[in-house]
């Protein structure tokens, strides 16, 4: 019986839509995260001077500090963007797929 349901889920185009949408969203955000993190690390490895540049004349705060805190804030934001979209839009679609599979 549960195999039937699995087969029905697989046959439902909405299932493939869900998998495609959610996975490509997850992969896009992963790539953004990897660029942000390794970009920052490589910047430190190759261009320390620029990161040490002052934000403005007479200031001590360097470019690297807001940028680094920015990577932390960015991490928090992308994670929560994913969670929000997955828990609303994707989960609604998911519930629909399960409902349809159980109904027939």
């Amino acid at each position, binding site marked *: 019986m549960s195999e039937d349901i699995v087969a029905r889920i697989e046959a439902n185009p909405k299932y493939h839509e869900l*998998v495609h949408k959610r996975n490509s969203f997850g992969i896009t955000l*992963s790539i953004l995260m990897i660029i942000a993190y390794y970009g920052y690390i490589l910047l430190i490895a190759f261009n320390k001077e620029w990161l040490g540049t002052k934000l403005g004349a007479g200031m001590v705060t360097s470019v690297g500090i807001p940028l680094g805190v920015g990577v932390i804030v960015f991490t928090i934001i992308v994670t929560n963007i994913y969670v929000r979209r997955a828990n609303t839009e994707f989960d609604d679609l998911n519930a629909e797929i399960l409902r349809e599979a159980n109904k027939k």
Partner: protein
Amino acid sequence: MTKSTRSLIGLGLGLFAAGGVLAAGADLGNTTKQATNWVAIAMFVVFVLITLGITRWAAMKTKTAADFYTAGGGITGFQNGLAIAGDYMSAASFLGISGLVFANGFDGLIFSIGWLVGWPVITFLMAERLRNLGKFTFADVASYRFAQTPTRTFAAIGTLVVVAFYMIAQMVGAGQLIKVLFGLEYIYAVMIVGVLMMCYVLFGGMTATTWVQIIKAIMLLCGASFMALAVLWQFNFNPEALFAKAVEVHSKHDAIMSPGVLIKDPVSAISVGMALMFGTAGLPHILMRFFTVPSAKDARKSVGWATTWIGYFYILTFIIGFGAIVMLTQDPAAYYVPKMVDGVQAVGADGKPVWDGLRGGGNMAAIHLSNAVGGNVFLGFISAVAFATILAVVSGLTLSGASAVSHDLYATVFKHGNADSASELRVSKITTIFLGIIAVGLGIAFEKENVAYMVMLAFVIACSANFPILFMSVLWKDCTTKGAVAGGVVGLISSVVLTILSASVWEAVMHNPKGSAWFPYSSPAIFSMTAAFVVIYVVSKLDNSKQAQLERSLYPAQKVRSETGFGASSASGH
């Protein structure tokens, strides 16, 4: 990377074991016992009484194996998020990172970021799939469509090895830290940690462990927030003013505003980054937390909250480190060790007395700052928080190790899935006692050893053995048992061997001459993790056995379950 660079990494990554590079006597192993701090002890006793009360309540609810492993799946997403944060924000990250900021400024930030970036990876790739496929341990997920005995056995070994290295670092750190904070002997400190951790896990299982972690996370977040606010308040919430003052008083002056010695060669930088990023997604005690929530939705919520709290906490440690630079120099006599020459304190060219490093070592920056902003009572509170932090982390580790033995090895491999809940629960409790004794034993055995590399090694093994198996078995249809186990074994062995051959063990632990280490980078992850993935791919591709065909044919059903949650283990865990 130079020796001092590696020592810096050791400080951030390991527990309190970096050599005297940052400040004289930064190695807590060399510090003498401090005077007994009664306020700190009283605060800690209150924490212990509360958590033991919770354990008693949890014990009444812990009747089945499912209760023991996953608190019956009844933890909410928000609670689990806090518990994950409590599991992850170790004393190393609190004291180690703020100490690193205190010593070097900017470089501490690089570590904070590294420790955080694993969380989005878990969120995007693992959290909901873990919840949908698993029941009690990550081996449930990895072995979902595979031959149980080899996959489970390997996953259990992967779990126990990671737990062992992580645990040793925590126990040694606990002993050294408590010696300094509470003025207790090392051996008593290690035994107190062992006994309390055993009580929580043995009687209260996952419910008690979760609440210990939640309470600790709240205490740590409140304490750290208060310190950061107190620092910022002094500078009218203007970070520029704080940095300006720090640059003025710090011995390295403007150098603390830009990246220093931490990252030299790009290969090491990326390799360390990979270990942190993907290792987080292979830590068994963290993965296990995803089975405590009722659904994939809650699993996502947990990781969203966990990332938020952990990220916020790392921003706080950065402010705390700078606060310590500014505030501790205002009263050096209280916080620094005088630099002695011929029995009297040395006097500099400017006629001012000369000070050596911080009292108690470089990792004490946050602790001293708590005294500077909140007096002795707040110092006691933060010291108690640091102790509670270690307890929460070791409890999670023990529970994870006990589950690997009872659920993966005993119930599945040894009893072929025919063990009843009562006997499985009994085995997990016996294992907990054993692990507690072993942890105390190892803590005592490694007292004088350099354990800085161990947390990093745990991360490297997690990212090179556990993570590739999980990732490939869940996301790649052609993956087979043989491929997964072969890749995992290669990842595990190469992590350990390359770590031994690197300077952090070859030179720092085995005392071979400087520069003689065969492996030149700070972390093997870039090689060991790649090797694991390649071996999984090649062996799976070459595997055309009946078993392999069966495993591939099971993939579509596994995928439906991992993506939609259809058939997922229910909230009650049965």
